[in-house]
C-alpha cells in the first residue's frame, strides 16, 4: 500500500538533500535501540518539507542527520551534492528552545554565524561594524525586531526570541534551513503570527527547509510537502504535496480542503501510533 518513495520522486535536477537508506541506532549489543529505520528521502532545492509524526519517532533524528549533528549507523546522506560527514555546510538550524547566548545582544547573537561560517569569518573583524551590521539590521527589520538589536535576550518575550532565533538561522543565507519545532513553545496567537513571518522569509529567500513539527495546521500552512513518520523506529509512511496558493493565511486553514488534508494526516498518525501501541502490548 505504500509505494517506494524513491519512485514517487523520479529523477529531478540537483537534489538539495538526499537520504539513501539512512538509519540510526543508539547503544551497543542488547541495549541497541533503532531510532530510525533505513530511510530514503529526496528534497529538491527550495522545497519546504514539514515532517510530522508521533513523539519520539525520529523526526529530530533526521534533522540532526542532515545537519551533521548525528552520524548515521548506515546509509548515506548527501546535502548540496556532498556527503554530510565532509562538513563545512552552510546549514541554518533553529530549535524549540531559542538558545540565544545570554551574554550577547540580539545583534551579536544574530551575527554569530558570520563569525563562524566560511567564507564570512575571514572578513568578520573588518566587516562586523559595517556590512555585517547592516545585514543583521535588515534581517531584524524583516521580522520586526529592528528596535531590539541592542537588547539582551532576557529583555525579550518568547515570540521575539524565536524571531531572533530565525534571523540567526538565516543570516548566513544558508541554502538549507533545519527547524526543530521552533514554534512549539509559543502560544497559539504568537505561533500563527510567526508562521506568517516564516512564510515571508521563505518566499523572499527560498531556502530549502525541513521543519519538524507536531502541529498539523503548521505543517499545512508552511509546507510545500508533508511527510508523515511512523512511531519508533521511525520510517516515512506518507508523503504528500501541499498545493494551496501562497501567501497562505490563517483563515485558509479553516477551509474544507485544508481541513480535509489535516484529517487525513491525523488519521495516518493515529494509525501509526496504534500500530506501535499494539506492538508494545503484544
Amino acid at each position, binding site marked *: 500500500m505504500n509505494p517506494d518513495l524513491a519512485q514517487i520522486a523520479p529523477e529531478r535536477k540537483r537534489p538539495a538533500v538526499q537520504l539513501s537508506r539512512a538509519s540510526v541506532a543508539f547503544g551497543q549489543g542488547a541495549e541497541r535501540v533503532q531510532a530510525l529505520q533505513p530511510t530514503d528521502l529526496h528534497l529538491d532545492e527550495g522545497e519546504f518539507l514539514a515532517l510530522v509524526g508521533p513523539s519520539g519517532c525520529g523526526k529530530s533524528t533526521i534533522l*540532526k542527520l542532515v545537519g551533521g549533528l548525528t552520524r548515521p549507523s548506515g546509509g548515506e546522506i548527501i546535502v548540496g551534492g556532498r556527503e554530510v560527514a565532509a562538513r563545512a555546510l552552510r546549514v541554518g*538550524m533553529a530549535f524549540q528552545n531559542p538558545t540565544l547566548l545570554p551574554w550577547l545582544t540580539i545583534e551579536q547573537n544574530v551575527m554569530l*554565524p558570520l*563569525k*563562524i561560517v566560511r567564507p564570512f569569518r575571514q572578513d568578520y573583524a573588518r566587516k562586523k561594524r559595517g556590512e555585517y551590521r547592516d545585514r543583521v539590521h535588515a534581517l531584524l527589520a524583516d521580522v520586526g525586531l529592528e528596535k531590539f538589536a541592542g537588547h539582551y*535576550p*532576557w529583555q*525579550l518575550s518568547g515570540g521575539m526570541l524565536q524571531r531572533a532565533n530565525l534571523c540567526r538561522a538565516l543570516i*548566513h543565507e544558508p541554502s538549507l534551513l533545519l527547524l526543530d519545532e521552533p514554534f512549539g513553545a509559543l502560544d497559539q496567537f504568537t505561533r500563527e503570527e510567526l508562521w506568517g513571518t516564516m512564510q515571508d522569509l521563505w518566499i523572499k529567500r527560498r531556502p530549502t527547509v525541513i521543519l519538524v513539527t507536531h502541529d498539523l495546521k503548521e505543517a499545512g500552512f508552511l509546507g510545500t510537502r508533508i511527510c508523515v513518520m511512523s512511531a519508533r523506529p521511525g520510517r516515512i509512511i506518507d508523503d504528500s504535496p501541499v498545493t494551496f496558493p501562497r501567501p497562505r493565511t490563517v483563515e485558509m486553514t479553516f477551509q474544507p480542503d485544508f481541513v480535509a488534508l489535516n484529517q487525513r494526516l491525523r488519521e495516518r498518525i493515529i494509525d501509526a501510533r496504534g500500530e506501535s501501541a499494539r506492538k508494545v502490548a503484544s
Partner: protein
Amino acid sequence: MNYAIRRRMWSAALIVAFFLGWEVLCLALNVSDLVVPRPSQVMATLVARFPVLWPHIIQTLWTTMIGFGLGVAVGVVIGALIGTSRVAYDTAYPLLIGFSSIPKVAVVPIFVLWFGAGPVPAVLTALAMCFFPIVVNIATGLATTEPEMEDVLKSLGAGKMDLLLNVGLPRTMPFFFASLKIAATYAFVGTVLAETVASNKGIGNVMMSASSNFDVPLVFAGLFILAFLGVALYVLFSVIEGRVVGWANRRTDLSPS
C-alpha cells in the same frame, strides 16, 4: 533612600559596631593586651610600625599575586581540559581530588627542602592552595553547557576551538569569577602559611616572630593587614566581575528556561 545605599550603610555600621564592641569588651573585662589587644592599640601599633611593616606587606602581596596568577593559569588550563573532555574528566578527577585533599601545611616543608626558605615556597604554596577551586568551577561550567547551544554552532561547522571561545568560556565566566574570589583568599592563606614556616620576610614571618616576642598587638596588626588585603582583592574582582559577567546577574524570569 534606596535599597543599595541602605544596605551599604548597614554593612559599614556592622563593621564599626564589631570593633567598638571589641574595644568596649576589652576595657570592661580588663583583658590584658598580651591576650587580646584592643583595636585602638592594634591601630596604634600599625601606624607606628608601618615603615618597618611596609616591605613585608609588599613581599606578601607580590608572592601572593604571582602564586595566584600561576594558580589561575594552571587552573584554567586544567579546568578547560577536564571540562571539555568526558574522558579527561573521569580519568583526572580522582587524582585532583586526592591532591587537593592534602593539607598544604604538610607540603610546605617539601617545597622548602627543594627550593630553600624564601619566596619560592610561598609562591608554590599559594598556587597549590588556589588552583583547585578554579579547576572545579571551570570544569563544571564547561561540562554543564547546554548541548543545544553548542548544536547551533556545530551545525554551522564550528570546530572545538570555536565552541570553547564562543560558548564554553563566556558561559563559564560567572563560575570563573566566583572561583577567583575564593582562590584569591586561599592564595593569601597559602603565602602566609609558607612565610610562617620558612621565610625571613613577609607578614607571616612578622607575625611568627612577633608572637615569639609576645608582641601581641603586632600579631594582630598582621591579621588586620591580611584582612585588608583580602578584602581589597575581593573588591577588585567584584568590580571586574560586574563588568564582564553583568549579563548573568541581570537574568530575569522573562528569559526562557
